[in-house]
């Protein structure tokens, strides 16, 4: 009896373990499927390769295998054609940087693969178009000795400017690369190569030279470096405030560029995944299994790029002191999500969980960040208004001084009238900011994300109007400074007194937009509640496939780059001519052109012209007076813009 019980018990145990083991084995098999299929797919594409190279690629981490698998066959071949020692280095790059290399042509990829490992890691952080630009010069060879921000600054130069300095010695190059981008550009564009290379001039000297007015620099640049040094020793140093700002701006631009590149990769991957999702839905049952694995790989890629974009955005906001509270904890959370996505055996359920968790986290944190930016913006506006008030007081004293220097009575009266108008204008801005502040102070965590975005758009409009107006104040004050200088040097002031800067006007539409916000605030104050039109989370977000379709054209902007070779103003024809070159790999369609004048006024126009990669384009714009600066923005890639100071070619 006991034996029977024992036998039955043993049989029962065997049966139970068999029943349990079956699904466990299934799970184990299922979890390995993802990785096996990624490898299988890669191997299919690489079966012609020698064993040594195939093994190198096979041993890549799953995240990198997924990146490779998402590339086109021709792009994979580019990697496969590299030497094993190059592949060994490339294996160590981050997945996102590997994805970037996939967008480069064979020659550029080879040049980057030739770099030492550390230099390769550094340059692959730059956006694709910058990489291509630098790879077309000998400057890429200096990547080991230069920092990432140095390489970024150099890639801000035009191709002809890069060619000018590509052969200078490394010591001189390092000195140049330490200059903030606008100063670097000025000295490289204006000074002869011999001066740039001279050991006589140090970094501070070059900074001073970059600040010298154009007509004076013309006199200096023909002199020997020793003489230049002797002369500029008497010039003021670059102000510390300006230096700090230039460096901070660069850091911000670099961080923002990283975010935009990651965002484009995310949108591109999302578009591909949505297409695959549609194919999966319509697939026959026998094809579904294979497609499901592929869909899982793509979903992991989408989430990886999405989280990387979020990390880059938070880093950029951190630099502007506008990140949401506990930003380091959020970053840690996002990095742990990335780690999960790196798992070989990640499941569809885990992917869905991460997608949901990220969405909830990001909507909340993005809202907090916007609130912080709006509050910082108001504080900044208040500071600017205070500075403006102080400067207008000083301007009044300066007019007194001009009077005592002998400026005629009628001219002094004209200046005082202008000053009064600017004082009234500043009061107008002050009132608007005060009203907006009352509205923004109501910002709290209860607002729906769509609502906060609506307020942010309005705050942006207010900031832009205030900016435009204060720029005119700045121009007026500068005019007073020029008048003072002219009087002291016994120069003619007639020209400086003509066309005095006036306060910038605000259109009816713009005024309506600001006042609409004020009215909304008042309704809220009176009624105790305000009806919100936008209650959905993201009011302007298109549905999945619509968005995919819409972003398809914009997803390649990382490949775009634009250069402005010249900007000239012909006073006889009243025409501004700009020479543009597409140095990227994407056709640029349409341009927005902004002309900024010395008095702070701005005029904007558009062009529907297209510019193919490698092509050049000349745009001509009518203008009554010479603009100080012209900025051109590509309509299909708004993050691609170039600006240049204009020179007069005919008086």
């Amino acid at each position: 009896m006991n034996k029977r019980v024992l036998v039955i018990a043993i049989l029962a145990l065997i049966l139970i373990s068999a029943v349990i083991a079956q699904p466990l084995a299934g799970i184990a098999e299922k979890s390995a499927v993802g990785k096996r299929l990624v490898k299988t797919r890669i191997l299919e594409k690489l079966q012609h390769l020698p064993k040594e190279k195939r093994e190198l690629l096979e041993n890549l981490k799953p995240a990198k295998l997924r990146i490779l698998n998402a590339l086109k066959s021709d792009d994979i071949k580019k990697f496969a054609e590299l030497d094993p020692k190059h592949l060994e280095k490339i294996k160590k790059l981050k997945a996102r940087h590997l994805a970037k290399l996939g967008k480069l042509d064979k020659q550029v990829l080879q040049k980057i693969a030739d770099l030492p490992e550390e230099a390769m890691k550094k340059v692959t952080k730059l956006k694709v178009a910058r990489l291509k630009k630098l790879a077309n010069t000998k400057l890429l060879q200096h990547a080991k000795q230069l920092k990432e921000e140095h390489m970024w600054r150099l890639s801000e130069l035009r191709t002809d400017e890069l060619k000018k300095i590509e052969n200078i010695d490394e010591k001189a190059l390092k000195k140049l690369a330490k200059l903030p981008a606008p100063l670097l550009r000025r000295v490289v564009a204006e000074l002869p190569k011999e001066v740039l290379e001279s050991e006589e001039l140090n970094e501070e000297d070059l900074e001073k030279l970059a600040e010298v007015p154009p007509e004076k620099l013309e006199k200096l640049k023909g002199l020997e470096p020793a003489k230049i040094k002797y002369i500029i020793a008497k010039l003021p140093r670059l102000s510390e405030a300006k230096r700090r700002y230039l460096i901070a701006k660069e850091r911000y631009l670099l961080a923002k560029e990283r975010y935009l590149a990651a965002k484009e990769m995310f949108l591109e991957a999302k578009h591909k995944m949505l297409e695959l999702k549609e194919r999966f839905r319509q697939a026959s049952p026998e094809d579904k299994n294979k497609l499901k694995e592929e869909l899982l790989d793509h979903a992991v890629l989408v989430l990886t790029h999405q989280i990387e974009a979020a990390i880059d955005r938070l880093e950029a906001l951190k630099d502007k002191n506008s990140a949401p509270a506990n930003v380091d904890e959020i970053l840690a959370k996002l990095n742990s999500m990335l780690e999960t996505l790196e798992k070989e055996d990640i499941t569809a359920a885990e992917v869905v969980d991460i997608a949901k968790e990220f969405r909830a986290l990001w909507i909340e944190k993005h809202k907090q960040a916007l609130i912080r930016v709006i509050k910082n913006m108001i504080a900044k506006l208040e500071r600017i208004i205070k500075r403006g008030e102080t400067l207008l007081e000083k301007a009044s004293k300066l007019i007194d001084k001009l009077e005592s220097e002998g400026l005629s009575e009628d001219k002094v009266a004209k200046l005082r009238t202008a000053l009064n108008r600017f004082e009234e204008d500043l009061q107008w801005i002050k009132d608007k900011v005060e009203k907006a502040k009352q509205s923004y102070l109501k910002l709290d965590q209860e607002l729906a994300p769509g609502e906060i975005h609506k307020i942010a758009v309005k705050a942006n409009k207010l900031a832009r109007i205030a900016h435009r107006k204060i720029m005119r104040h700045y121009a007026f004050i500068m005019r007073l400074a020029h008048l003072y200088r002219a009087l002291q040097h016994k120069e003619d002031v007639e020209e400086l007194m003509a066309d005095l800067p006036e306060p910038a006007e605000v259109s009816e539409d713009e005024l309506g937009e600001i006042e609409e916000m004020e009215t909304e605030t008042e309704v809220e104050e009176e009624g105790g509640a305000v009806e919100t039109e936008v209650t959905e989370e993201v009011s302007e977000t298109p549905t999945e496939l619509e968005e995919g379709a819409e972003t398809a054209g914009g997803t390649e902007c990382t490949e775009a780059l634009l250069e402005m070779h010249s900007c000239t103003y012909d006073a006889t024809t009243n025409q501004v001519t700009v020479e543009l070159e597409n140095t990227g790999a994407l056709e640029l369609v349409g341009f927005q052109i902004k002309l900024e004048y010395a008095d702070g006024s701005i005029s904007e126009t558009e062009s529907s012209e297209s510019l193919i990669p490698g092509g050049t384009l000349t745009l001509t714009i009518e203008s009554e007076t010479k603009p100080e600066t012209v900025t051109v923005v590509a309509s299909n890639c708004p993050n691609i813009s170039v600006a240049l100071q204009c020179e007069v070619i005919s008086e």
Partner: protein
Amino acid sequence: MNIKFLAIMLAVLAIVAFSGCIQPSEEKPSGTPTPSESPAKATDEKLAEEIAASMETPSELAGLDELEVDLNELEELASELTETEDIAESGIDESTFE
């Protein structure tokens, strides 16, 4: 003997005189024009003053740099406000793999 002595003295004197002639000239600090360059120096001084004057801002307008910095920072903050939360939506949910 006297002639010999005279010849030695003459030789010594010649050496002393010669070495005096080839004494190294006083070193000038790099970048400083020599006295013979004084007209050039005056020109350089004039150019230096001219450039410095063109870059001078009246003391009444001190603080313009800071205003310029603030205006640029305002522009950057304003551009942050146009950023939407469009990276929140991945398009992945339970229905994706069904």
